[in-house]
């Protein structure tokens, strides 16, 4: 439509009177040229595919003639438009330019131009097989123009100079040479120029209302100015007065600093807060698997039983919430019925599941285990039960002779058995009244006897089959022919020796009668020289602990007043020190270390154990282990601290007994869980190196009876062999 209007404009121009035309000649020329230009342009655009051969020829001729005429003036610019003809007017007798006539009808538009072929805009290949290419206006067939073969065409290209500027016209099914306008258009498009040759992008502006003499000075309307233009506004005044009043009353504070309050709504994810990590992205839903395919492999398809089972199980118990189904084609897949449900579940998952970034320490738990040497490299240690010596009842106390060859074991029926470590045959037995509380060999090497503690009594027994020298020395120590002088103050402890006529192997050669009601001696601790022994009894007020001196046949109570209850005592293996484990009122437990020669307290150790059951000091004298009924074992480094260097809790029941091996770097602990645990405990001379404690072996073989397990363990002095007495009445020997 715009084009049409333009055309009309041109036509208007054309109809302008010639005088005016002449007056503005120059301008009009350009104008007119533009107008024609537009028109031809128009035609160019639309008509490219279907060209009129006649007009084309005309154009060509014109074009050529033009070329000839205006070669020097404007060789580049092609005037392809209907050329102005200068003719001498027969009216004025002057030259005038005559334009070709334009028919102002619809046909002037080239798009509606007549083409002989009226088939319309159809794919022309429909007529490929037919002899004609279409129909004309009258319905007559238009026959296909003769088309030569390839050779002809080639010859054509060679002979016809216009053949390279011709294009195939589909409707006519023939080659048509391009018009000059079309060629120019192609050239301009190639050169990236404005395709319209007449368009001047830099034409001067036309000033309509500016510039001298063109200003509009006269008003457009004669109406007087309204009042409101110059009277101040009453409503504005009211509004201002309202604000003024508010300021006066203080309701509005001028120059008040604006409080920047946080907006009510803000984007919580807009900026990352400094304290928290940015929210984690939601976890992705799992990718579909093979069985979720619309056409899964056969092996994914459920059998009838599986289907039935799937249907019978509750939805929350199902392994997967769909049944694989097979469709031969994707278009046969029905609509997904669970879409909403799935989406909802997914939302629930995201909403309900807290997404927390866990700081996961990537530590190999094995690396936290301390590097300990392999038990195999720490051999020898006891590994198996070599023999078992039965007792009638609980074998509560055992003792191994200093040379490691003999064992005495006592049970609750009052029987003491003496047997070889290796054979386990009781060579001799003694019978006492009442329970045997404790039994202990004298550590001296040149004598051989042991002490048995029964109710209120300590019995000294010489084993049979001794070499004469040892026997005589033992006898002379325990039953000297001349008794030492009786101390002035009568002691509550009585020492008695049967006369030589009464004494046999079967009875004690020396008996110490502790004060009455002092109860069963539960522990006897020998001093390393074998002259002193300390006994701890269950009962008695302060008389629980006694220290007996064999050579002077004298007993003394080391503590005048004992707070609490003494449970264990121990002589230091090297120094003149004495350990006492005692308890106050079930709560406070301590181990005190006294210097015997200076008679003063050296230190108090706090094991933090509820109830101390056993205690042993390392042969080096610098380390102490304390075991408790609350399953704990405390290792004290006496040089280091009053607090345990290490607290081990490995038994499942109360620890009953502990002992360091006198020569091997071993210690053993026994417990009410029926197990004995063997530890390697190497102590370095270098004070900087911590003791090495390696668990080696758990020896099981005692049965737990009446809640009691292994009551005492003792080492053989020269071999890594362990003797253990259990509540099941068995005394076991464990060999390496």
């Amino acid at each position, binding site marked *: 439509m715009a084009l049409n209007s333009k055309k009309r404009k041109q036509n208007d121009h054309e109809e302008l009177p010639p005088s005016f035309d002449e007056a503005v000649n120059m301008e009009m020329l350009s104008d007119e040229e533009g107008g024609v230009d537009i028109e031809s342009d128009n035609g160019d655009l639309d008509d490219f595919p279907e060209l009129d051969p006649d007009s084309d020829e005309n154009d060509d001729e014109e074009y050529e003639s033009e070329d000839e005429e205006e070669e020097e003036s404007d060789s580049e610019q092609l005037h392809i438009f209907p050329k102005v003809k200068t003719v001498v007017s027969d009216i004025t007798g002057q030259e005038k330019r005559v334009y070709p006539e334009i028919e102002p009808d619809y046909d002037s538009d080239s798009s509606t131009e007549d083409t002989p072929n009226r088939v319309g805009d159809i794919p022309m290949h429909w007529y490929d097989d037919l002899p004609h290419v279409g129909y004309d206006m009258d319905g007559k067939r238009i026959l296909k123009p003769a088309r030569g073969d390839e050779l002809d065409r080639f010859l054509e290209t060679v002979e016809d100079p216009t053949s390279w500027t011709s294009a195939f016209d589909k409707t006519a099914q023939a080659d048509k040479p391009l018009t000059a306008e079309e060629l120019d258009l192609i050239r301009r498009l190639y050169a990236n120029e404005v395709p319209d040759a007449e368009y001047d992008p830099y034409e001067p502006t036309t000033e309509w209302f500016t510039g001298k003499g063109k200003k509009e000075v006269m008003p457009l309307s004669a109406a007087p100015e309204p009042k409101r233009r110059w009277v101040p506004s009453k409503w504005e005044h009211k509004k201002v007065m309202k604000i003024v009043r508010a300021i006066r009353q203080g309701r509005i504070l001028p120059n008040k600093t604006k409080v920047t309050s946080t907006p009510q709504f803000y984007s919580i994810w807009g900026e990352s807060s400094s304290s928290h990590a940015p929210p984690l992205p939601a976890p992705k839903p799992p990718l579909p698997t093979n069985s979720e395919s619309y056409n899964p492999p056969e092996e994914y398809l459920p059998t009838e039983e599986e289907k039935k089972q799937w249907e019978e199980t509750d939805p929350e118990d199902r392994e997967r919430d769909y049944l694989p189904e097979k469709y031969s084609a994707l278009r046969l897949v029905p609509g997904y019925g669970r879409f909403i449900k799935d989406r909802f579940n997914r939302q629930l998952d995201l909403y309900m599941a807290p997404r927390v970034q866990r700081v996961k320490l990537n530590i190999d738990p094995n690396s936290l285990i301390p590097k300990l040497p392999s038990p195999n490299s720490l051999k020898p240690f006891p590994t198996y039960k070599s023999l078992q010596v039965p007792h009638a009842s609980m074998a509560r106390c055992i003792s191994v002779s200093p040379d490691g060859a003999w064992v005495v074991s006592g049970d609750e029926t009052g029987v003491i058995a003496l047997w070889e470590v*290796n*054979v386990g045959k009781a060579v001799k037995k003694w019978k006492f009244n009442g329970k045997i509380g404790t039994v202990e060999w004298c550590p001296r090497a040149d004598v051989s006897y042991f002490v048995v503690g029964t109710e209120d009594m300590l019995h000294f027994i010489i084993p049979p089959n001794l070499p004469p020298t040892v026997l005589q020395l033992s006898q002379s120590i325990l039953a000297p022919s001349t008794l030492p002088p009786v101390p002035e103050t009568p002691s509550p402890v009585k020492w008695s020796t049967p006369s030589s006529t009464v*004494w046999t192997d079967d009875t004690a050669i020396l008996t110490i009668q502790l004060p009455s009601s002092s109860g069963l001696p539960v522990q006897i601790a020998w001093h390393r020289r074998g002259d002193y022994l300390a006994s701890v009894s269950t009962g008695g007020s302060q008389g629980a602990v006694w220290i007996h001196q064999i050579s002077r046949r004298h007993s003394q109570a080391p503590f005048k007043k004992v707070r609490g209850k003494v449970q264990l005592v121990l002589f230091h293996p090297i120094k003149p020190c004495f350990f006492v484990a005692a308890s106050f009122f079930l709560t406070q437990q301590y181990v005190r270390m006294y210097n015997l020669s200076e008679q003063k307290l050296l230190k108090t150790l706090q094991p933090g154990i509820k109830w101390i059951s056993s205690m042993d000091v390392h042969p080096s004298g610098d380390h102490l282990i304390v075991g408790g009924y609350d399953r704990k074992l405390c290792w004290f480094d006496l040089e280091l601290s009053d607090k345990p260097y290490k607290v081990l809790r490995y038994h499942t029941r109360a620890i009953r007994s502990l002992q360091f091996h006198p020569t091997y770097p071993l210690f053993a602990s026994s417990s009410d869980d029926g197990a004995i645990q063997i530890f390697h405990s190497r102590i370095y001379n270098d004070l900087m190196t911590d003791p090495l404690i390696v668990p080696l072996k758990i020896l099981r073989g005692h049965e737990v009876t009446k809640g009691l397990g292994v009551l005492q363990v003792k080492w053989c002095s020269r071999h890594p062999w362990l003797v253990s007495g259990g509540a099941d009445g068995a005394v076991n020997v464990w*060999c390496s």
Partner: protein
Amino acid sequence: MASGSTVGLSCSVVFTTHTQYPLPSQKFMIPTSWKRFHLSQLINKALSLTKPIPFDFLVKGDLLRTSLGDWCAENDFSEEETLEIEYIESIMPPQKMSDIPHEDWVSSVSCKLAGYFLTASYDGYIRGFDYSQKLTFSALAHAAPITSLCVIPTHGHEDELSYTIATSSHDLTAQITRLSLSSESEPKSETQTLAKLHLHTAPVSSIAADPSGNHLLTSSWDTLIGLWDTTVPLTDEVPEAPINDREKKKRRKLNGGTNDSAEKAKRKAPTMVLKSHTARVSRVVFGNSGSENTAYSCGFDSTVRVWDVESGVCTHTITSSEKPFLDIALNADGHTALAASTDRTVTLYDVRQGSFSTSGTTSSGSLLHAAMPSCLATGSTPHQVFSGAYDGVVRLWDLRSLKSAVTSFKAWEGRKKVLSIDWMRGMVGVGGEGGLEVWKAIEDLHS
């Protein structure tokens, strides 16, 4: 490899033997599914023996217990290679002959006297039983447990029924006792203590007599080994220990049973004391006949020592680590010493004179036991050894196949310790916690 699937397979085998039934050396193609029984039949067929003899087969020092194919699979032996199989006469499983309960534990057994079993017991008695399990004599030899007993061989002795036996005891002495067994002329057996051997200051752990019967060796817990001759001195060689008043009564009581004055045992001193051990000597034995001047001892100091008895010098020491030895035995050819230790092994040591310089003191193998092996008995064949252990099981080992025992039998019900075994004339006497048991085992070829 299942034996069923390898029916068609076969492997080539060459048989060798040291028995008196040699086969011509040739290759046999034998199905891998064959077991001992089939192979034994094959040998019997090939030799065309009139009386079938069962054989056992040693494949590379391993007694064949499964089929050949299984053995090959276990030992990664390719079946294309030629397998060399040694066959030995099969050992019949031992059979219990008699069970003689004792009042106390039997610490030592001797089957050396033909027709009798001698036992020494922890109650201090020596007992003798004939083959009909009848107690022929019992005599209180020591006041303390007897640890060991040996029969002193007599050569050309005039009295057939009179023997000398030596015992060692916990009472720090050993003694030589004359034993006159009952006969038609003398219905009552008599024992007479000839001499008491005084040296040790600790229990005497073992006593051994050399094959000629002229020397005795005692070992004790006091690390000493005493060498004694068997002649009975006319007077006491060791003075009586001073007896204080406490001892007198006891001594009187002890000797009250025997009429002392005339036949009081002479106190005998050792001819030589062998000192080298650092801990208890648990066992000393003489070398076999032909090397009587050599003695072997083992002890708790984890050493096996070889002694030259004539000079009393320890000629060699085999030291191992943490193996307190309990018993030592020499096999019949005297080349190998077996020592039982508390770590549940019996270790083999090559004790040939030449081997010390070459092989050093390394063991040539060990027999693993389930419990502490306490005693060993070697027979007349160099390959077979009986060992008794604290679990009451007596095992027979073939030294060519150390992996497991050839056969074993359990003495007594329950877990009763075996303390001593002796193997003579196809009989194994087992003494221990349950008394004495006699089992019939391999026939002793030499006797």
